């Protein structure tokens, strides 16, 4: 579907930031007001949501059918620095930043409406009247509900004043009550989600949008109130609206904002859940072709070929999504970890790839990253220096390193205190019934750890295994000296390590055995940590996030170890592969072997997510059959038993031109680590990494 003229113009205007003139730097002084009124932490958080909502004047542009334009650029702090220091000293633990990277129970909130949630809060307050903490939380929650209702009412009044009665009617009914139209549902979702951002949270995903919105659309279609072109037009406008404020959403880079959507899969009872909106969302995402929302698609080996073909159109556009998740691996993996079947079937992703349960998870999915290269390197250097007689000794040392890294990352987190989040609590399953803020925990309270640089770590172990202990053709002292010299003067040794030792990514059983071993030991180390202090455990994963850069080059404040030159022939500072990928520059046969390699990871133990990251040259897409071929590749990914996959499609020459002439490539989108961003807006280090992934061979 092509975008309508109206939406094409809207898309261009959003990209150009035409709405930025509404923005300003005035923010309500929450800290001062709260201090004057003697408010608690939770009350301050509610006050911030209330004042931020009140500070948003209704802005309705003539061509808009889905409204909300944020004007306040910044979200103010809850305390002055001095007050915070004093308050923090009273806390028995370490407060974290604002809650982020979880998924609201959008479906239930839309279905019930905020008034019903409000009534529930008041009923619980009456029941728990003797519990001051519950009363405080529930009153804070009600205050935030009222502020959202007020914001909606002011937008409705403005719409009415402008003669936009359809918009006014939609805002009248939702989010206060259950929407009676697809339009009202989208509008309500837009407001509800925008207020999460206004409340200071980050990485606010939209979960299983095709599931919870389909009933509204289906009813409209059945009643003849809407046709498919009209539905797609609305959905496209909604998708464009998600891009209006993405530049205000803090992440490591512009684009890293976690506005993810999960499509397809099964319902909570395990029935096929692909519906017409699943298809429409794929079509519309292709027509909009912007970085938000980031599309994920759940698949199995039996997924309809035509659906995969439709998804492949997005890949062909170079959007870097969909990212695919394999239900056959993810769901049993979550169950093995302790999730209920119904919840496991309802999974979505957090900002990038971490599997979470909408409404039911207060999981902290990215506590940090284990550096496999650092663990392997420490073991290799110590073991060779000590004259270890066998490879098993190196492995033993490596396992101890992994355990030590995991423990060092987790131990301080046991003292973690999450800040109260009364508004986000309104959107989750449980808090309004229990009278306990989201920050106290939900049904699932696990931590996630990334497992970064797995290919480089395994390659280094394999090099030692092959050359030092098996062939006995490399003297330990030579390798240690070469590592210390960053291979300067040891070029032929480096070439040997690089070119002759088998590497991860080629479906080679020897190298892959090291990979599997690393993840098994990682899982064991996480399990050994036991409870995380919040009634959860530690989920090991296969993602890297930005650690593929940081673990190689360091960064201020980094807790994880930074590694120098490594025994796989890697120079100091060379970046690691993003997520599950061969080490950059390593020769691999191709995507089939790479999938076969990463299918060997024990995904029943490794459940924090992290995609196989494939890079396809864009010449793959010449010819009519290309979409079929990519669809088959996705099916192969599911058949072979991988867990998650993203595909990037880029033309190196285009990227080089974009570096030289950024103004001519404003819309060029690339996949970075778990999200898509505009290439020209990335820091050079990330630009370089994306380009290096495409710069292999002749």
């Amino acid at each position, binding site marked *: 579907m092509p975008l309508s003229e109206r939406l094409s113009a809207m898309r261009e205007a959003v990209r150009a930031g035409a709405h930025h003139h509404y923005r300003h730097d005035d923010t309500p002084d929450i800290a001062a007001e709260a201090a004057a009124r003697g408010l608690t932490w939770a009350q301050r958080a509610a006050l911030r949501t209330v004042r931020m909502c009140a500070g948003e004047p209704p802005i309705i542009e003539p061509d808009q059918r889905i409204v909300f334009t944020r004007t306040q650029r910044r979200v103010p702090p809850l305390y002055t620095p001095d007050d915070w220091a004093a308050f923090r000293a009273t806390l028995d633990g370490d407060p974290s930043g604002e809650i982020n990277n979880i998924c609201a129970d959008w479906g239930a909130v839309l279905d019930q409406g905020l008034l019903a949630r409000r009534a529930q809060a008041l009923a619980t307050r009456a029941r728990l009247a003797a519990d001051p903490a519950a009363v405080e939380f529930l009153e804070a929650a009600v205050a935030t509900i009222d502020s959202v209702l007020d914001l909606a009412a002011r937008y409705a009044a403005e719409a009415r004043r402008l003669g936009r009665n359809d918009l006014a009617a939609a805002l009248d009914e939702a989010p206060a009550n259950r929407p009676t139209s697809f339009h009202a549902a989208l509008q309500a979702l837009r407001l509800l989600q925008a207020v999460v951002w206004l409340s200071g949270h980050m990485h606010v995903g939209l979960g299983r949008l095709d599931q919870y919105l389909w009933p509204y659309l289906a009813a409209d279609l059945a009643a003849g109130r809407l046709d498919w072109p009209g539905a797609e037009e609305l959905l496209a406008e909604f998708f464009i609206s998600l891009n209006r404020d993405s530049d205000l959403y803090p992440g490591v880079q512009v684009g890293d904002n976690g506005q993810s959507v999960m499509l397809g899969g099964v319902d909570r009872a395990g029935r096929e859940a692909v519906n017409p909106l699943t298809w429409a969302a794929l079509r519309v995402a292709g027509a909009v072709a912007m970085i938000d929302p980031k599309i994920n698609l759940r698949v199995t080996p039996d997924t309809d070929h035509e659906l995969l073909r439709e998804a492949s159109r997005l890949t062909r556009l170079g959007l870097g999504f969909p990212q695919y998740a394999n239900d056959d691996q993810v769901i049993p993996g979550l169950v093995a970890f302790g999730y209920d079947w119904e919840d496991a079937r309802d999974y979505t992703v957090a900002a990038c790839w971490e599997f979470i349960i909408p409404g039911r998870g207060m999981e902290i999915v990215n506590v940090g990253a284990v550096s496999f290269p650092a663990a392997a390197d420490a073991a290799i250097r110590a073991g060779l220096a000590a004259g270890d007689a066998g490879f098993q000794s190196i492995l033993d040392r490596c396992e101890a390193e992994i355990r030590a890294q995991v423990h060092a990352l987790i131990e301080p987190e046991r003292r973690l205190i999450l800040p109260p989040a009364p508004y986000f609590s309104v959107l989750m399953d449980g808090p309004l019934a229990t009278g306990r803020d989201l920050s106290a925990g939900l049904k699932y309270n696990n931590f996630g750890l990334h497992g970064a640089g797995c290919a480089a770590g395994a390659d280094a172990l394999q090099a030692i295994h092959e050359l030092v202990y098996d062939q006995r053709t490399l003297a330990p002292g030579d390798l240690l000296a070469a590592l210390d010299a960053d291979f300067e003067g040891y070029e032929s040794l480096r070439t040997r390590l690089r070119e002759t030792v088998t590497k991860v990514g080629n479906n080679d059983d020897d190298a892959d055995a090291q990979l599997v071993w690393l993840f098994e030991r990682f899982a064991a180390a996480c399990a050994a940590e036991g409870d995380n202090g919040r009634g959860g455990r530690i989920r090991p994963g296969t993602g890297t996030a930005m650690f593929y850069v940081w673990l190689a080059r360091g960064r201020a404040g980094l807790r994880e170890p930074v590694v120098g030159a490594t025994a796989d022939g890697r120079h100091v500072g060379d970046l690691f592969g993003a997520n599950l990928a061969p080490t950059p520059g390593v020769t691999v046969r191709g995507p089939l*072997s790479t999938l076969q390699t990463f299918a060997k990871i024990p995904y029943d133990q490794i459940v924090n997510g992290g995609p196989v990251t494939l890079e396809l040259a864009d010449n793959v897409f010449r010819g009519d059959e290309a979409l079929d071929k990519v669809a088959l590749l996705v*099916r192969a990914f599911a*058949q072979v038993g991988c867990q998650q996959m993203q595909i990037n499609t880029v033309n190196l020459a285009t990227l080089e031109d974009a570096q030289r002439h950024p103004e001519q490539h404003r819309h060029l989108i690339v996949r970075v680590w778990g999200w898509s961003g505009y290439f020209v807006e990335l820091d050079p280090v990330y630009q370089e990494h994306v380009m290096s992934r495409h710069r292999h061979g002749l």
Partner: protein
Amino acid sequence: MRGIVFDIIEFAVHDGPGLRTTVFLKGCPLRCSWCHNPEGLHPAPQILTSPAGERLAGRVWEASELAALLNRQGDLLRPNGGGVTFSGGEPLAQYEFLLAVLARLDHLDVVLDTSGYALPEVYAEVVSRCALIYQDLKLVDPAAHVRWTGADNAWILANIAQLPRLGVPFVLRVPLVPTVTDTPLNLRAIARLADGLDGLLRVDLLPYHRAAGGKYRACGMDFVPDYPEDAPLNLDLSPFDDLGVPVRLAGESYDAPL
């Protein structure tokens, strides 16, 4: 039995149906002046040099070793309508090695991508073990064929003529090289030759791609096209349409997989 392979490309999207891995056998008896795989010409391994460094093109494989490698992908290739394509170079130039590999493949559909320049009995033996043939046909006129490819086309025409009897479906693939193969005369001759051949699925016309010369420097060779590279291609399909020969203009697919 050993052979020399200069590349193995997984997820080869232009070399046959389904999910597919292509094996490029090194060495070719033809010298087509538009050849885009110059590293496939010489039968021995050679070092390619480029700003990115050096790369060895050509590795010796035992037939059993190559077959084992390909069989390891069978679980992905078979259920996705695919298999293995043997290309080159000219794969029939190493036909004994090729036959040894084919004999060891575990139920993998094989596409043979060939110039057809081989002894007819060799051709028949290999073809009969394949599921689909991508049979190149550049020029019908023998003198022109010698002029532009350095080789006579008698074997090629004889092999095309025996394809219907061999009972293996085939596609005729015609590289459209400006003023050389895209002439109305040549296209009419190809259409007449194709007309009525049992087992012919279609004729694929593969438009010339300017990237043809890209790898010559790395091979230490000069790319000297003795035809006007920029001349507009004759894309007139009427010689085929007139005879009812199924024809397809392939995207831009006559460039090598990178």
